């Protein structure tokens, strides 16, 4: 894909990624955030986080399916960092609007309410990933960068667990994103396996023929 088209696509992706937060700002200023603004903001930012994480996790499986899609890699960091952005807004909303920065209240919550334990842990796992997202870090860390960034799988799974643990018994809202994440997580070993089978099936041709 030519560079010009990628730049144009990146502009669109930026706008799409900014839409959730801009929508919240618009509603806060011009219309309404509903009867419980804290909940509205928390839910919108949380949803944006898990959706962006899952979309970023779709990139590698798609690239493996077709070499023509290899340019997608140039969007993975953008999506991952936006996921961290919304995760941080989500955490900040919990700290500020929900707990009013009351340290006693928050430590009781983090220790006692397991969905908050899971959520805070997921954010803590995303933090080093965001901090090492630069080209400098990739160069400096080399092979270790790959290993470190596997934490994104743990963070995404913890995020989905956080979602299930916070909804009331009987509520199935987290189901669709869980299934999509499940497919994407399975897609990696599956595409590796398919790739290996393809390579094994091809006859090895000596270069001198």
């Amino acid at each position, binding site marked *: 894909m030519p560079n010009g088209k990628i730049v144009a696509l990146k502009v669109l992706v930026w706008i799409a990624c900014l839409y959730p937060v801009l929508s919240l700002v618009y509603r806060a200023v011009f219309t309404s955030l509903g*009867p419980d603004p804290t909940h509205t903001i928390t839910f919108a930012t949380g949803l944006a986080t898990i959706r962006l994480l899952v979309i970023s996790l779709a990139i590698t499986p798609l690239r493996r399916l077709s070499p023509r899609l290899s340019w997608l890699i140039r969007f993975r960091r953008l999506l991952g960092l936006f996921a961290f952005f919304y995760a941080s807004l989500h955490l900040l909303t919990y700290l500020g609007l929900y707990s009013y920065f009351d340290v006693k209240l928050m430590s009781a919550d983090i220790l006692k309410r397991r969905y908050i334990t899971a959520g805070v842990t997921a954010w803590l796992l995303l933090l080093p990933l965001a901090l090492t997202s630069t080209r400098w870090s990739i160069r400096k860390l080399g092979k270790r960068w790959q290993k470190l960034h596997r934490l994104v799988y743990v963070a995404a799974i913890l995020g989905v667990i956080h979602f299930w643990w916070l909804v009331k018994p009987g509520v199935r809202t987290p189901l669709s994103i869980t299934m999509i994440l499940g497919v994407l997580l399975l897609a990696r070993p599956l595409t590796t396996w398919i790739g290996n089978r393809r390579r094994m099936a091809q006859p090895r041709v000596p270069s001198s023929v």
Partner: protein
Amino acid sequence: MVIPWAGYSLSEFINQCEPLGSAKYVQFLSLADAKQMPGIRQVSLNWPYSEGLRMDEAMHPLTLLTLGLYGDLLPNQDGAPVRIVVPWKYGFKSAKSIVTVRFVASQPPTAWNDSAPQEYGFYSNVNPDVDHPRWSQKSERRIGEPFYKQRRTTLKFNGYADQVARLYSGMDLRKNF
């Protein structure tokens, strides 16, 4: 939220019923009609929803047999056509859409207590000193307040201590939560 309910004291209704002296508790059974309430088909609580009060709690003037709110009749989701409101207890005690009232000799089963007895007791008085096993009850967010000052300290008996504390004098409210 702080709601202006409309109704009259349940005690007036109970007096009209003339319960026997052996009646120690009042049980409330709610409507469980799958046609109007499709969520009932899902596995969650035991339906019909059951709640109960000790006779002295039911006869307390603050226990409201409720028919409306904000000057209008109760909407379906708020417990139409008639519900009770017990303002010093956690919300799930205020049973909605009541169709049966029973006067019973022993403590009746209640929906949430059946579902999670270690989390929901029979009395369920608002009590900041007794935590729910999975979360603290020390503070609350009052919806309707500006969102930058919603959180406030929870009051014992939801602020009705002067009116109802005597009902529980001598009782261990940690055991009888």
